[in-house]
């Protein structure tokens, strides 16, 4: 096959005045603006573009479009680029994929010699023994992986996304699709028209000039004058629930690829038809092309596809291709008419070229075989909408059966007809789509309880009164009297499929899985029907009996970059964060929050708190503002302990359980006024506890009067801890008597702090020190923090971070929900049984906790390694002596700067929970160490004298 550039064609899309230079396999080439990579190379005489996956057979142009299985190339760092679709750009570095050492001398082509042993699924039947050699086999097999290369330095480029809420989306801008878009827009709908190719027009673009050219010009002009939004080089990749559409826009001026997410009220599916290859000996040889490919090459890019052609035609498009070839100066040596029962049997020649075509026993010398054997209906989007297309043997293709009412098909997918009939069907479809979209829009509006201006009744659901398109008779041409390739991208032949069916893989899905037919780059658009036909033939059944596979999204592949877009996973920082950053903070991620972990030396921070005073930013602490008369009832229901008698100004600790008795969250809640409480939760539990509270209030106790407002980020929270904390706080707080008698441990006050009114302050003791927790309006957080630092300079005030706080709480033996507890830890295991009031009428988890009272549960205990220098890993297992029997685990462990020894919390079996019990802890290193269970959770100040001071 020798291709070359023709004289200027009236329909061509190239601009011959702009030459683009590029490289192909390292050599210099040039093409014109408007060329695809493949058309430029074809015009330059290239006819081998790739090697097949398994046998490494040379492959040339087949369909000359996006779906061409032979035209996958590497462009720079972009693998698997569709050279039949991607427009040529100056400076492109294009290379063949899956070849070694080069496209023209490929060593793995030797596989072709042993193809009879490499039948489909051969690998399941060998390489079993010796088993230890399978990894070696596997490495060899992996070198056969097709496809391009990923450059490890590829950056994640900028990708945009867009949301859209059109009334009607039309997928496919052929004549029917354009008419549908125009008619829908004329009826008042907002319409988006999405075309996979680089320009609208569908088959009119490469059709013989008249009358197609006039029609195309007319449609383009009408589109330009309409309000239809036209997206070219864009594809509706998927139809999901309720017409949620994914649309990939490859033509965006800035983003490499852009994902558009559209909630279409009605989707019109008008992708046209895809020409199907025909199966015969040598059908994958360079020089064998589809009729559409021939017409596209000649009419769009002015490429002469060969010198001497045989045309195998079974339809008008094949006839048109023959005419185009003659007009382009290609000698048409023979026309084999499939409608007369004639068949092409073989394409012959040396590996890389076509020399002759055998049909009906006659051998005709030719360098080009153009095949028009029938069509595949790309029903993918209909499948995704739940439709099961039905095969019509008279028309030799599948047709839609019963898609949902908000999905309409038109164009070639729906039937055949003259151009004016297709256009009329499209226009009728567009009108119907607009009517139904109006009904859907009305329904959406009316479903909103407080819809503003829903006027009138819902428009009636318009009946489908479109005159159906006819179905032209077409011979069922799938396989000739010889065997050939069914799936060119997977190197699966009709022989493979017949053998698979005979072996028992005789349903389409089984055969597909066994042979990998339809699993390649075109995902069955070229291969599915021939696959089904081969299986039907092997089983002696019809195509309708065998059925087809389910097409899955996406319709066209799209890059991970486009799908990912920009990552919208924001981080949260407190209003005090700038101070932390300016003061050498090391941060830690805790859920969404970026928090101070420490400022260089957490042990020093701990010592400073224990001797002087420290301040910590605890803003992420979950905070819920509760108002209403029924709050005590709510607290009684959610916490395990009792809340009815909490006086104004008092704070209490509480533990929440799920209904299965497992610890859910904990925190303190304070009563700020008669009907005003502030509840705190763990930082990670803040969102969940809020939903939990709302769930109880709205579903189980809707008559209770409690109003809940999340105020986590409305307040900046600062804990002031240490023996000098009262002195420090007294310097910044006005109007509150801070003496231990007037403001005792577990009390709350409203205060003005550093001139900021409306702050809450409570005395609690997570660190075990005298401490005041300040909750100040968030905007003033930084100011109050700085005021504390300044006011306490002479007291030795210093910041401390999460690590210091963790050390101190561990010294005090306070457990952390989710660290010292797990998904099965029942409340009594925390050692907090006195806080579980089983005599309450009801609370979340009550029945399970009542029953658990009789059960032997693991317990959280304080543990000290016998060697004070050894800090076990958090997760180190507690085992029985020298055995591997697990009796518990260390859940928290730190070196205590205060005690100068390792301190731990752990969960142990109940028989080991008594103070003084000797344990064996298995370290990650494998060493077993001795440890002792302590009498109290608190390693430090068990009487709690410091925090009550």
């Amino acid at each position, binding site marked *: 096959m020798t291709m070359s550039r023709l004289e200027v064609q009236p329909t061509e899309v190239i601009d011959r005045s702009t030459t683009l230079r590029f490289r192909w396999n390292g050599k210099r080439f040039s093409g014109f603006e408007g060329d695809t990579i493949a058309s430029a190379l074809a015009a330059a005489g290239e006819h081998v573009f790739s090697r097949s996956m398994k046998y490494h057979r040379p492959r040339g142009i087949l369909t000359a479009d996006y779906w061409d299985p032979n035209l996958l190339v590497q462009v720079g760092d972009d693998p698997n680029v569709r050279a039949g679709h991607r427009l040529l750009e100056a400076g492109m570095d294009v290379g063949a994929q899956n070849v070694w050492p080069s496209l023209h001398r490929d060593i793995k082509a030797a596989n072709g010699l042993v193809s009879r042993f490499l039948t489909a699924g051969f690998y399941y039947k060998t390489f079993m023994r010796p088993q230890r050699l399978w990894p070696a086999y596997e490495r060899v097999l992996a070198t056969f992986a097709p496809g391009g290369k990923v450059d490890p330095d590829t950056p994640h480029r900028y990708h945009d996304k867009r949301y859209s809420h059109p009334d009607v989306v039309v997928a496919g801008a052929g004549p029917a699709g354009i008419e549908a878009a125009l008619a829908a827009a004329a009826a008042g709908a907002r319409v988006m028209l999405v075309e996979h190719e680089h320009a609208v027009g569908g088959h009119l673009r490469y059709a013989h000039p008249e009358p197609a050219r006039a029609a195309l010009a007319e449609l383009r002009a009408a589109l330009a004058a309409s309000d239809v939004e036209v997206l070219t080089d864009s594809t509706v990749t998927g139809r999901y*629930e*309720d017409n*949620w559409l994914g649309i990939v826009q490859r033509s965006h001026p800035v983003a490499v690829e852009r994902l558009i997410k559209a909630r279409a009220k009605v989707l019109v599916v008008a992708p046209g038809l895809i020409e199907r290859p025909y199966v015969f000996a040598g059908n994958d040889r360079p020089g064998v092309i589809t009729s559409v490919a021939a017409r596209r090459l000649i009419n769009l890019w002015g490429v002469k596809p060969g010198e001497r052609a045989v045309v195998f035609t079974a339809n008008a498009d094949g006839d048109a291709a023959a005419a185009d070839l003659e007009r382009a100066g290609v000698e048409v040596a023979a026309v084999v008419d499939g409608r007369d029962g004639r068949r092409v049997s073989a394409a012959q020649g040396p590996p890389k070229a076509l020399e002759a075509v055998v049909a009906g026993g006659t051998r005709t010398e030719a360098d080009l075989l153009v095949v028009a054997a029938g069509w595949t209906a790309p029903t993918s989007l209909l499948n995704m909408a739940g439709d099961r297309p039905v095969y019509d043997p008279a028309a030799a293709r599948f047709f839609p059966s019963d898609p949902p009412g908000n999905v309409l098909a038109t164009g070639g997918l729906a039937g055949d007809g003259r151009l004016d009939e297709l256009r009329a069907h499209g226009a009728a479809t567009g009108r119907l789509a607009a009517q139904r979209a109006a009904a859907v829009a009305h329904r959406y509006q009316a479903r*909103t*309880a407080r819809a503003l201006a829903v006027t009138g009744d819902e428009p009636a659901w318009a009946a489908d009164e479109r005159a159906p398109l006819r179905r032209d008779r077409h011979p069922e041409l799938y396989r000739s009297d010889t065997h050939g390739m069914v799936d060119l991208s997977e190197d699966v032949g009709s022989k493979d499929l017949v053998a698979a069916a005979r072996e028992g893989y005789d349903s389409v899905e089984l055969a597909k899985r066994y042979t990998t037919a339809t699993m390649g780059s075109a995902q069955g658009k070229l291969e599915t029907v021939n696959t089904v036909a081969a299986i039907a033939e092997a089983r002696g059944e019809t195509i309708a009996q065998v059925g087809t596979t389910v097409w899955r999204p996406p319709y066209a592949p799209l890059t991970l970059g486009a799908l990912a877009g920009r990552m919208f996973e924001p981080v949260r920082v407190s209003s005090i964060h700038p101070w932390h950053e300016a003061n050498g903070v090391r941060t830690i991620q805790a859920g969404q929050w970026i928090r101070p972990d420490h400022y260089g030396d957490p042990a020093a921070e701990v010592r400073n708190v224990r001797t002087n005073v420290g301040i910590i930013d605890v803003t992420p602490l979950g905070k819920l503002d509760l108002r209403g008369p029924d709050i005590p009832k709510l607290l009684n229901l959610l916490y395990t302990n009792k809340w009815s008698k909490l006086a104004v100004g008092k704070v209490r600790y509480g533990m929440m359980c799920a209904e299965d008795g497992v610890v859910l969250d904990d925190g303190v809640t304070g009563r700020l006024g008669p009907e005003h409480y502030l509840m705190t939760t763990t930082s990670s539990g803040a969102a969940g506890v809020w939903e939990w509270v*709302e769930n109880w209030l*709205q579903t189980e106790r809707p008559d209770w009067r409690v109003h809940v407002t999340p105020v986590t980020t409305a307040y900046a929270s600062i804990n002031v801890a240490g023996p000098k904390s009262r002195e420090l706080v007294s310097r910044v707080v006005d109007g509150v008597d801070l003496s231990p008698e007037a403001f005792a441990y577990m009390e709350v006050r409203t205060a003005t702090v550093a001139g900021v009114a409306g702050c809450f302050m409570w005395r609690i003791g997570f660190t075990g020190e005298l401490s005041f927790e300040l909750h100040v309006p968030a905007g003033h957080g930084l100011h109050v923090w700085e005021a504390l630092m300044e006011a306490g300079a002479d007291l030795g005030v210093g910041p401390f971070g999460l690590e210091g706080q963790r050390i101190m709480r561990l010294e005090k033996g306070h457990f952390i929900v989710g660290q010292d507890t797990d998904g099965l830890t029942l409340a009594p295991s925390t050692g907090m049984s006195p806080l579980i009031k089983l005599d309450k009428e009801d609370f979340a988890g009550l029945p399970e906790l009542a029953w658990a009272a009789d059960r032997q549960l693991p317990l959280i205990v304080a543990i000290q390694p016998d060697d004070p220098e050894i800090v076990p890993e958090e997760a180190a297992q507690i085992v029985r002596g020298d055995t591997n029997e697990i009796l518990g685990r260390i859940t928290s462990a730190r070196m205590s700067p205060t005690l100068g020894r390792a301190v731990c919390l752990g969960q142990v079996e109940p028989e080991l929970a008594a103070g003084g019990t000797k344990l064996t802890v298995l370290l990650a290193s494998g060493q077993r160490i001795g440890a002792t269970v302590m009498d109290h959770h608190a390693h430090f100040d068990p009487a709690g004298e410091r925090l009550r001071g």
Partner: protein
Amino acid sequence: MLLVPCPNCGPRNSADLRYGGESHARPDPATASPLQWRGYLYLRDNPAGWLRETWYCRSGCRRWFTLERNTATNEFRDPPQPGDKRGSKA
């Protein structure tokens, strides 16, 4: 992306809501047997068809509400009117 008909906010993408699962009545904790209580905790009808279920409109009205959905087709039935008692079994 399911379009969930929130009774207050109208149709919303399911990503805006939290799925609460099959509605089931909470037994009286005072009288429930262990089997009844654990049935409430763990056992589900899980039908392939119409299911009464709860949703929480976390990015909208912040209301928990009950809907009926066909789990085979994901089609919703018109929601109960606002003000109905939520969360109890029909």
